[in-house]
């Protein structure tokens, strides 16, 4: 009997559960005063958000921009002309939405 696949699945489950409890995703966005916005992402345990997917969506759900957190866990973009929401997407249970009214000046 080959237990390897079961162990692998169990490990994955365990890892997911641990990760969800150990850290909470964090993302805040700041107006840079030059028509650009910088979002800073991270986790409550201090781990890096480098590589986390970032999306800027219009109010109807249209994707205006897509990218990823850089090496310093930041993402800078030009302010869209219409209403928008920033989405920090680190996977299920780790998604943060920052509506444009919550951008800090």
């Amino acid at each position, binding site marked *: 009997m080959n237990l390897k696949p079961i162990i692998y699945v169990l490990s994955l489950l365990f890892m997911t559960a641990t990760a969800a409890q150990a850290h909470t995703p964090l993302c805040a966005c*700041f107006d840079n005063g030059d028509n650009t916005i910088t979002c800073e992402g991270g986790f409550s345990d201090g781990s890096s958000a480098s590589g986390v997917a970032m999306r800027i969506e219009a109010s109807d759900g249209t994707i205006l921009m897509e990218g990823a957190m850089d090496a310093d*866990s930041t993402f800078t973009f030009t302010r869209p002309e219409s209403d928008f929401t920033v989405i920090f997407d680190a996977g299920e249970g780790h998604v943060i939405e920052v509506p444009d009214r919550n951008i*800090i000046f």
Partner: protein
Amino acid sequence: MKSSFAALLTGTVVLGAATMASAHFQMIYTPEMALEQGGQIPIKLVFTHPFDAGYTMDMGTPEQFFVIRTRGENEPVRTDLKEELKAIEWASLTNTGKAWETMYQARGGDHIFSLIPESYWEAKEDAYIKQNTKMIVNVGGEPGAWHEPVGLPTEIVPLAKPYDRWTGNVFQGQVLLNGEPVPNAEIEVEYLNHQPLLDSNSFAAEPAVTVPQESFAMQTIFADDNGVFTFGIPRAGWWGFAALDLEEDFTYKGQPCSHDAVIWIQAKDIN
């Protein structure tokens, strides 16, 4: 007439006792160490007696005032804030002393405010006092390098986040001189017992607590062999820790100088 004389006498005795029992504390103050979100925050540098809101000393021009910002695993970024300081007058309950203020733009993570003040001549002790001080603000709950030394000549390194203590937690710190632990360091602990009023640069007249006896106004504890001290936090608010006279034979302008290290914590009630 007799009763007013008695009242005056009692007042003098109480005031005298209170002054003797409290200690010098260099403050780096802002209303909130644990901020939900970033923005402009006020910073005040005041050298005072926080438990009594007592005599506030004239600060000279700081030798250094800087902040080290760290966020997650990113490299720390040091920003010099000395040139941003503006001179103010801070009113205690008994006098007015020279102090400093600035506004700071805080984004996410830990912001370790660090001050090397000019030495202060304390005539009553025939010695100078130099209290290198740290205060750490966190924005948004993402931690940084709050537990790393910033490299002050004398420094208290926190072993717990100074901004996340519940009332009833302990706070531990390690006392360092030139980066090395100071065994058995003496530490004075005081509660910030009068609310700082930032608009008027003064302390509220009303104290938060009264003491059953003068020993309670300024508590003295000692570090262990590794320079580590532990303090149980009995009440929400700001608590200051001043490790005293860490460098034997330290002098300033040919006079003895107490080379101290200060750190502040802000505790919250768990409800």
